């Protein structure tokens, strides 16, 4: 037995429901799993040896090695999040536990340079580099 407007009661129930399915995202927090997200990188420069394993593993060539005084081999990675595909291969390739993916996923920037993190040489100190990269303020 077919008839038109089968969905009517469900639709009316929805209409007078208080909680709608929409999440007003930037104003309300979105649903996020507790752990395991792959977001922006965090680099512990004092553990990094500049072995280039992450550069070799990176499929979209988003990691570039630049000269540095802080590591053994004199190189350190610079990560371009604009080209990164967040696959996590670099995290796996790193044998010295220096590079991790954090769960910081709300990345945006108004210019191309804003997406490159760890571009400047960090100051020489023993504490690990700060938290996840800050959003560009321009």
């Amino acid at each position, binding site marked *: 037995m077919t*008839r038109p407007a089968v969905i009517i009661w469900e639709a009316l129930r*929805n209409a007078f429901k208080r909680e709608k399915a929409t999440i007003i995202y930037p104003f309300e927090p979105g649903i996020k*799993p507790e752990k395991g997200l*792959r977001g922006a990188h965090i680099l512990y420069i004092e553990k990094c040896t500049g072995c280039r394993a992450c550069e070799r593993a990176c499929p979209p060539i988003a990691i570039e090695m630049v000269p540095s005084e802080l590591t053994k081999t004199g190189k350190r990675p610079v990560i371009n999040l604009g080209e990164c595909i*967040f696959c996590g*291969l670099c995290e796996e390739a790193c044998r010295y536990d220096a590079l991790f993916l954090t769960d910081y996923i709300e990345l945006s920037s108004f210019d*191309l340079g804003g997406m490159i993190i760890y571009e400047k040489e960090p100051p020489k100190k023993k504490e690990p580099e700060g938290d996840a990269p800050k959003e560009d303020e321009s």
Partner: protein
Amino acid sequence: MSKKKIKVASPQTGCSACMPNTMQIPLGPQHPALKEPTHFLLEVQGEVVVNATPRIGYVHRGIEKLAETKTYSQNLTLVERVCGICSHVHSVSLANAVETALGIEGFEVPKRAQYIRTIVLELERVHSHILWLGIAAHEIGFDTLFMLSWRDRELTMDILEEISGNRVNYAINEIGGTRRDLSQTQIDRMLKYMDITEERINRYKDICLKEDTIRMRTQGIGILLPSKARELCAVGPTARASNVKVDVRYDDPYSAYDDLRDIFTVVTYDTNDVFSRVVVRIIETIEAVKYIKWLLKNLPEGPVFAKPPRKVPEAHVLSRTEPPRGELIHYLWSNNTDKPYRLKITTPTLANIFSVAEMLRGDYIADTTISLASIDPCFSCEDRMITIVNNDRRKPKIETWSESQLRRYSKEWYANKGWKK
């Protein structure tokens, strides 16, 4: 009406000279009903389509060529990007091919990894089919069903995000197993969510079977007879809706489908039209939920990853898998290095696009989009290579630009415009 006999284009070529009393209407490359660019040139008489000529390749990105320059583990992430919706099945297919080649040397993938892969595959099928249901409802102007079905799809997406760390490109596969294991709390939550999903899909099945207007719009249009479906190599739900019993999960079991054979049913339906495809997809979703529950309950213990050797011995491997849309082929030639010699990918849409041209013939214009959507098209193919004819009049030449050249060009262009970097 003129007495000239209307010459219908031969199915062999799919194109013909313009017929009398026809008007050509382009469908695509940009069209509100198409989520991805493709082009169909429709010849219509009044509201009736007499001929349709497809043209594809607007999203050709050169993945097959690019795959030859990357290592196998990098390629897994590359082939995931062939398609945004059925991404996992591509990486499973490639991983299967590589592992089969490694199997010559006695390499084996842990059972638990196979199960987790299959769970993700079926979750992907659930979310893809619900997504398709929403799109189909949108094409026939039933936006309420579209919104509600996509709301319920979020549950599946949340599960996938939780177990893999990403909503679209899961990157859960690795050659030799999976990267992540399932914890007991995750399994319990998945079982709970699957119950809700099953209830909702049964509700949609009810709606689709009982709603009059859906039947009016889907019955008797986009007809693909079984004989035609066989002749034109239709695959997947498109073929199964034409009552052709073909399903790679059953015919050529991979991953954990070998163990599923006892409870597996190949869903077919025999009205050969769009309605048949709707029914097949919905019932397949219910079946997929059943398989997920079975796999979760019978998940074997053990490791999820075995370290593979870096180099893959020389072999020609054909890996067949069944994405939500049809049949996916990865044909791999390895040559004893860590990079493939040749990787051939055939996506289900390429196999089905010929059937669409057949379906459209004789239908109304109003039905073209739902007929086209009924195969769940996914136009993802190859290279982003742009040809630019330079403006030098004395030496006109065609240049082929690669993506990085284009990027460099765009950066320079923006720099000239005074933009920041």
